């Protein structure tokens, strides 16, 4: 085999999952383009997708870390609401918006740490524990807010609004921020001790512990990152909508998780892909508008969402199962 062929084979082998996700994204876009060429060529359709796509990205990228570490979190969809609520309350109390954002982000990280401690020290299944936290936090939000939303139109006059969710070259600012976050996360995941230890812990926690890695700390910090991402998503969502509402973020729960798995990160831990997750988010974000654009009634939307998820995950089987 020539060296060139070998390099090519290596490239496919090492990035199979990410390339697979790219493939699904391209196929999906082609189907929509053929099915509804006029609608899909309209720039404002893409603009509307790109308003909320970054919000999903903030949630999904940290979830790749957590799933790679062999854990799962459902509570992020409520942490989203909680951090946004704290942000909204502080804003209404007249605090500087920048400070409100920082405290909001911090609150998400704290919720993540608590979630992690619950799983690690309480020795609970992360699926069940975070399911409890999902309802508990959301329930708290309903009670605390008396099920009333909070609006803050005044934020649009502040400089921070333009910096975070304004427009640059016709593209929403949140797209740049999400891109920055994703690139940072990529390096954290592949090139930093934090990400590498996450891989080891998800692959074989006993081996990791025997080699002196603090497995508990690694797990807790992965939960922390998910909380932080959810808080970012929640705050961006508030800024985009000028409003906090009690059910905010709840609808993203299953879509964000689907994006992780469509993106090619398997459920068993130890492996995953940030690049794949980006395309996973792309699939999720376009799936909704695409189905409607093709002239199907909204009734069909969930049906096709499900079909796409199943086909994508079946496809990822071809990249191989778990190596032991």
């Amino acid at each position, binding site marked *: 085999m020539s060296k060139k062929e070998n390099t090519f084979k*290596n490239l496919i082998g090492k990035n199979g999952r990410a390339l697979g996700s790219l493939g699904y994204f391209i196929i999906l876009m082609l189907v929509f383009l053929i099915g509804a060429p006029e609608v899909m060529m309209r720039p404002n359709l893409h603009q509307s997708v790109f308003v909320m796509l970054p919000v999903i990205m903030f949630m999904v990228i940290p979830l790749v870390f957590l799933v790679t570490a062999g854990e799962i979190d459902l509570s992020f969809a409520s942490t989203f609401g909680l951090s946004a609520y704290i942000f909204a309350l502080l804003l209404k109390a007249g605090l500087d918006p920048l400070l409100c954002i920082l405290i909001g982000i911090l609150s998400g990280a704290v919720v993540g740490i608590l979630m992690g401690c619950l799983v690690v020290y309480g020795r609970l299944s992360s699926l069940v524990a975070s399911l409890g936290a999902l309802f508990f936090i959301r329930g708290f939000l309903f009670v605390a807010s008396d099920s009333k939303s909070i609006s803050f139109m005044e934020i649009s006059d502040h400089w921070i609004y333009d910096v975070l969710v304004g427009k640059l070259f016709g593209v929403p600012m949140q797209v740049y921020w999400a891109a920055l976050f994703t690139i940072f996360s990529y390096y954290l995941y592949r090139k930093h001790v934090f990400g590498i230890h996450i891989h*080891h812990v998800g692959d*074989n926690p*006993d081996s*990791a512990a*025997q080699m002196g890695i603090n497995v508990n700390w690694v797990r807790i910090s992965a939960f922390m990152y998910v909380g932080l991402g959810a808080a970012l998503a929640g705050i961006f969502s508030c800024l985009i909508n000028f409003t906090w509402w009690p059910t905010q973020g709840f609808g993203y729960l299953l879509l964000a998780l689907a994006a992780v798995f469509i993106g090619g990160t398997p459920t068993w831990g130890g492996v995953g892909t940030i690049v794949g997750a980006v395309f996973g988010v792309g699939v999720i974000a376009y799936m909704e508008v695409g189905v409607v654009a093709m002239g199907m009634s909204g009734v069909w939307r969930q049906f096709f969402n499900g079909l796409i998820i199943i086909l994508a995950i079946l496809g990822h089987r071809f990249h191989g199962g778990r190596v032991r």
Partner: protein
Amino acid sequence: MSAIIELKNVSKSFGGITALKKASIKVDVGEVVGLIGDNGAGKSTLIKTLVGVHAPDDGQIIIRGNEVKNWNASKAREAGIETVFQDRALCPQQSIVWNIFMGKELKHRFGFIREKEQVREANKLIREIGFTSKLIDAESPVGNLSGGERQGVAIARAIYNNAELIVLDEPTTALSLIETQKVFDFVDNVKKSGRSVLFIGHNIYHVYDISDRFIVLDRGEVVHQLNKNDIEGPEALMKVMKDAVSKH
């Protein structure tokens, strides 16, 4: 000779089952110590306590004359103790490089990995060990390797850090004859370089061949210790072990 590590009256139990009862052992600089005993004698528990994977319930751990509190796996590695565990302690889905540097990565400031250097060092190491006949890419996952090759990775990791004490827990289990011989050669090399080895084995002939001193363990207690000069051969060692255990 001075001791690299000394365990004094170390006890450990798991949910009411006593795995170690006031066990005391030490390993001196430059010696090869063989730890023998039947299945369930507590060999692996003793080793895992010695290298910090299990925290002892009671007793002292003394490193180069100083008692260390809150002993753990990370401290053991910092103290120059590397272990080749019975289960090899590998992550099969990760690359050979990542496995070799697991827990002791080469880092820039802020924790980013010196990736190229790691790959270069790993490639050098797997050549040195000579565990593989074909060319293996250090970036391929450990899950693609054979049992002997995986053992090679575990040994490469143990020697990379210039450890002063290398602990080998049943390193020849499930290896071919040639691979077993390679492990022995490796132990010889370590000894020649003036470092110490703690060797745990089922096979008394293997243990006899490479050790300078023997420790017999039975039901969590150290029941006998002797030097190689004190006995004739592996059969004599076997008899000593049986006597010590039956008296216990």
